[in-house]
């Protein structure tokens, strides 16, 4: 179970990543963030950016025609 969930449907880059990053910052190391989004570019760029920032991407799942769910585990402050 994720410790935190955010719904950033309707947002575009870079605000998708801004919201995801602020959510990760507010969490403890080891906790999991679940992100619901509908921007295809963000479904690819957020995992890349999160990995670059030292976080662990656990899952990227397309749940329907429009939406994705990403699971990110916080590894680094």
């Amino acid at each position, binding site marked *: 179970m994720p410790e935190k969930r955010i719904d950033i449907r309707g947002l575009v880059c*870079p*605000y998708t*990543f*801004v*919201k995801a*990053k*602020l959510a990760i*910052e*507010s969490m403890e190391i080891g906790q999991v963030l679940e992100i619901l989004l509908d921007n295809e570019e963000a479904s690819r760029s957020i995992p890349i*950016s999160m990995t*670059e*920032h*030292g976080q662990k991407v656990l899952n990227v799942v397309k749940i329907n025609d429009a939406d994705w769910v990403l699971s990110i585990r916080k590894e680094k402050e």
Partner: protein
Amino acid sequence: MEFTEQQLQRYSRHIILPEVGGRGQAKIIDAKVVIVGAGGLGCPVGYYLTAAGVGTIGLIDNDVVEISNLQRQIAHSVNTIGMLKVESAEKTFKALNPDVNIIAHKVRISKDNILDIIKDYDIVVDGSDNFPTRYLVNDACVMAKKPLVSGAILKFEGQVTTVIPGEGHCYRCLFEEPPPAGLVPSCQEAGVLGVLTGVVGSLQATEVLKLILGKGDPLKNSLLVYDALKTTFRKVKVPKNPNCAICGEHPSITELIDYNEGYCSLP
């Protein structure tokens, strides 16, 4: 801290930087920086710190805007000629970012008021144009233990250094005393390529943001020299002088000095 939607948008390019993030931007918003001089260097330093969202920016200057300033002092305009520089700059900075609290100190800085002004700020920026002020600001920052980002320009050359009292060198470790009045020409006498103020002021603003964020290596124990004609940057090591008259082990200067006599100052 919780950002408003507007703040998220305004500072998004900062927040996505790993070295800044939401926490770093919050530090920037909480920071208090005072700039000595609202002229060639003070304008770009204040402009970029305002854009970055530094929460409180003090400006110290008692000159008024003249048309000869406009070749380099980018916060002023033909519409503010005759206005106090601190008020002209405040107007410009507020238009860029109304969230920033600009405090206009409409005074000539002196040994009698400097400590009282800088005590309320975290970081001091020297954008002054004359040696008496440069040494006064250095000595006051060492005494008050305030980090100082000092910049200077003349003709086609600029210098930047960062003084962190108790940790690194100070301006007097570099040059013990001001040169005799008249020996080093002022910009008024020697000229300055206007855009140089933008290069040096931007470097100073960068140093300030790094100090606020606690990231990277500030110009501690070093002096950066920019030569615009050759397009070169040289970083020169400046060791802390253990016998420095102000920051050394046994300081001989125990009170502030106004070296004013004989110097001409350039707005």
